[in-house]
């Protein structure tokens, strides 16, 4: 199925829960309805998105929102779908899908690690790539690099070059 047909199916199954962003082939979902929509994506016989290809957080600065982009693929039906969820930077929270697609487990931990997005209901939400005692979320655009980490100077010391 192409994007227009997937959109039609979703419009019938869960009206008012999904939205599009201009003419881009992706659907926008609000965090509070993501639980229902994600279940539908996996279980609906017309959609059967059994594979989560990628889950990436992003920070576009513009309006104090963080976002998460999900890329799904159906190995059976051979179609894909991009889902975008936006959440306020103040208190970023999105329901976890780690129990539906196990691939989301580590990817959600990574998005938490880098952007501080809380995935509600995740089995073990903790940092994955950075050390557990790291402060701040480095991929946020307003992240300010600390001077030291456990006594180690982080900033590049250029005095030696002069």
């Amino acid at each position, binding site marked *: 199925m192409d994007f227009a047909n997937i959109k039609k199916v979703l419009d019938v199954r869960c009206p008012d829960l999904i939205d599009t962003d201009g003419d881009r082939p992706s659907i926008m979902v609000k965090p509070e309805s993501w639980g229902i929509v994600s279940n539908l994506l996996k279980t609906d016989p017309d959609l059967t998105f059994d594979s989560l290809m990628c889950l990436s957080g992003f920070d*576009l600065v513009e309006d104090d929102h963080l976002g998460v982009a999900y890329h799904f693929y159906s190995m059976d039906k051979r179609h894909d779908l991009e889902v975008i969820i936006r959440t306020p930077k103040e208190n970023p929270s999105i329901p976890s899908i780690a129990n539906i697609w*196990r691939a989301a487990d580590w990817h959600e931990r990574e998005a938490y690690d880098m952007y501080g997005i809380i995935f509600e209901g995740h089995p073990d939400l903790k940092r994955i790539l950075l*050390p557990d005692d790291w402060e701040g979320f480095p*991929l946020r655009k307003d992240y300010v690099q600390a001077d030291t980490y456990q006594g180690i100077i982080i900033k590049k010391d250029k005095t030696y070059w002069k």
Partner: protein
Amino acid sequence: MSTKPHIDQSLVKTEEMVLNMGPQHPSTHGVLRLKIHTDGEVVSKIEPIIGYLHRCFEKHCEHLGYEQIVPFTDRCDYIASMHMNHGYALAMERLMGIEVPPRVEYIRVIVGELQRIASHLVALGTFGLDIGAITPFTWMIRDRERILDLFENLCGARLLYNYIWVGGVSHDLPEKFIRRTKEFIDYFTPQMDEFDQLLTFNKIFIERTADVGILPPDVAINYGVTGPSLRGSGVKWDLRKDEAYSAYPELEFDVPVGTGKMGSVGDCWDRYWVRMLEMRESVRIIDQALKSIPDGDVRAAVPKKVRPPKGSVYSRFETARGEIGYYIISDGKNIPVRLKMRSPAFCNLSVISEIAEGWMISDLIAILGSLDIVLGEIDR
């Protein structure tokens, strides 16, 4: 054949022990730490702890021009750098709508398949080494050396190539490259039969790997496992066929899948065997590509300034380890707003707790070896 060890809890008093394997351990293939919960010698749960090699790839990308990112992708998967370059170039070309000359596509396929052979040789050699077979490793590294020599001749580097650029490749094929590649193929084809005699059908190797660490196809898909590890579970899925890019649609090759020849579908031996067969397919592809490579200017489509339009792209590519995905958001400037790399080994490793549960620690070594991970791309 190996079977899961059975412990009668009513006869022995056991208690759980937590064991750390790594970060410095010869069979973790890099700086990976596995926190293993064991019951005697039987694994009950594994927590992989990663991030020891984290080099802030994605953060760096947000401060670099698009063309400057290519050498960074090299460093992510240092065993198969060519594929990383190609995956990135492909994503950028899709974002910018660049049409690449056919000669470039053929060169990319040739070097890509050579790289696949080189990468699989390391994967299979170290897999054998992990479970005690030392000779195959030295033989495979010896043959990989020939491929690295070819690459050195091609672009000057043996591991980190920076060869495939957005819109083209950095240099045309050097004189004699085609002849030397043909010589390599003629040399390598009988070598694969020797590997089969030495390792593949070795009784000890089969005993150690057949029926061990079975990965069912639905679990593999749910965990996002891709590449030879997924095909080992019997799923016929290869982006070179199913979402064909570059010159692959014009070339003939098969997609080998695991069939449970020595044990069950999706065991360690199947994952090994799929890689072995893939090397044969790669040789077939290179052979065809060398015969039909067209002429042309390899830098004809390389843009002077890499400045994609506003928008985003998710593009995936079949590397030696599985699907690499690049999610790139552009705001029309010369540096990306966001570049996410979905690394194949990251997802492949996450399944280990699921499939290693109930096996002995020595089997865990075989399972980890069969997944073929590279920590550089897991940690990025």
